[in-house]
């Protein structure tokens, strides 16, 4: 039994043309038993900044709360919205503080720069090692399946609607090949002036 696959999750983020997308499954399970199909794993941290937290569910909730606290303090102190890259450093710092007793989450970050609107995606491991890419990032129990799907379906400069189709197909077909993730999916398309949240109709098994 691996701690990171105790609850099961599948999250990915992709870059498009002046937009980013972040998508996650909705299953909350305890090993083989599915407990709920409306468990949120993607959270809004700012108007154009989202974080996805796959991994141990208790740590998902705790890291979210602690991160929200730090982010609020930052925005109050500095009187400005945080940049996605700076937010990534903040998350990395939070995770590394627990280097020898880590939080079992491997976050995925997606957002647009508050000033320039430039798309940004990043992921990191459970002790805060960051990875910034220009195409896609994945994290969860079916990461290998997700990497395969993204690698074949993704192409650069997709428009928001095309990005939605691409990320939906990539996520769904990946978590359908994993026993502990799936049971519904949510997709956020983040553009400069609006965020669209869509639920996907998926296999409920």
């Amino acid at each position, binding site marked *: 039994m691996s701690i990171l696959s105790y609850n099961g999750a599948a999250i990915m983020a992709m870059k498009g043309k002046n937009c980013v997308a972040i998508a996650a499954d909705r299953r909350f399970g305890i090993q083989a038993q599915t407990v709920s199909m409306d468990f949120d794993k993607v959270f809004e941290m700012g108007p154009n900044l989202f974080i996805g937290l796959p991994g141990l569910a208790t740590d998902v909730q705790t890291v979210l709360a602690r991160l929200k606290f730090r982010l609020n303090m930052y925005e109050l102190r500095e009187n400005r919205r945080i940049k996605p890259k*700076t937010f990534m450093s903040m998350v990395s710092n939070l995770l590394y503080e627990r280097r020898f007793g880590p939080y079992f989450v491997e976050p995925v970050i997606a957002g647009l720069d508050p000033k320039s609107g430039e798309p940004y995606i990043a992921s990191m491991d459970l002790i805060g090692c960051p990875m910034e890419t220009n195409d896609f990032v994945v994290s969860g129990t079916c990461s290998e399946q997700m990497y395969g799907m993204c690698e074949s379906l993704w192409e650069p400069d997709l428009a928001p609607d095309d990005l939605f189709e691409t990320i939906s197909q990539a996520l769904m077909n990946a978590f359908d090949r994993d026993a502990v993730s799936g049971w519904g999916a949510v997709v956020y398309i983040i553009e400069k002036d609006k965020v669209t949240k869509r639920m996907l109709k998926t296999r409920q098994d």
Partner: protein
Amino acid sequence: MSERYSFSLTTFSPSGKLVQIEYALAAVAVGAPSVGIKATNGVVLATEKKQKSILYDEHSIHKIEPVTKGIGMVYSGMGPDFRVLTQRARKLASQYNMTYQEQIPVDQLVQKVANVMQEFTQSGGVRPFGVSLLLAGWNADEEKPYLYQCDPSGAHFAWKATAMGRNHVNGKTFLEKRYSDTLELEDAVHTAILTLKESFEGQMTEDNIEIGICDSTGFRRLTPSEIKDYLASVS
């Protein structure tokens, strides 16, 4: 060892003042003059650096110190207190950089430094710092220059132009007349030198004043030869 005080040495007087802070401000007011001017494209800091004897190796000590690549500070008052605050400011700036992988904005650093100064007015067994600081920095996000002052009390405020130390009242009056919102960095340096000259006794040379400038490329102290060029255009 020595007895540890558990009470604060800075206590209120019946009139509602903190006398130790007033005295600290008096120490600042007899210190060497320093000037800060904010221009449209940068900030200039200047200070008098007169040594008590010609035997001093004047280039071994600096009154204008960088805190980060984009922020510098100068003081009026007690040199050793400035040294301690510079070290603290640098550490605070570095810690911010370590957490956020981003250079600390000037206004954030000012708040942290001012907080340190305030702690020393409300802690046991310590005295307030005998310096007022001028911090100059370039805000990369907003692409604007900023000039801030920190007092021994921990109060901090932003300035367009100001003078501290000996003769600061005359200095500020001089700046009120000379300052304009359209001032560029070159003119600001010129004006800073003239402001220092108002309270300068004797001949101003490149060895007895220090100038630092901050613009979009960062903060740096001017070399003596650069100062010499500016002085030539003044006299």
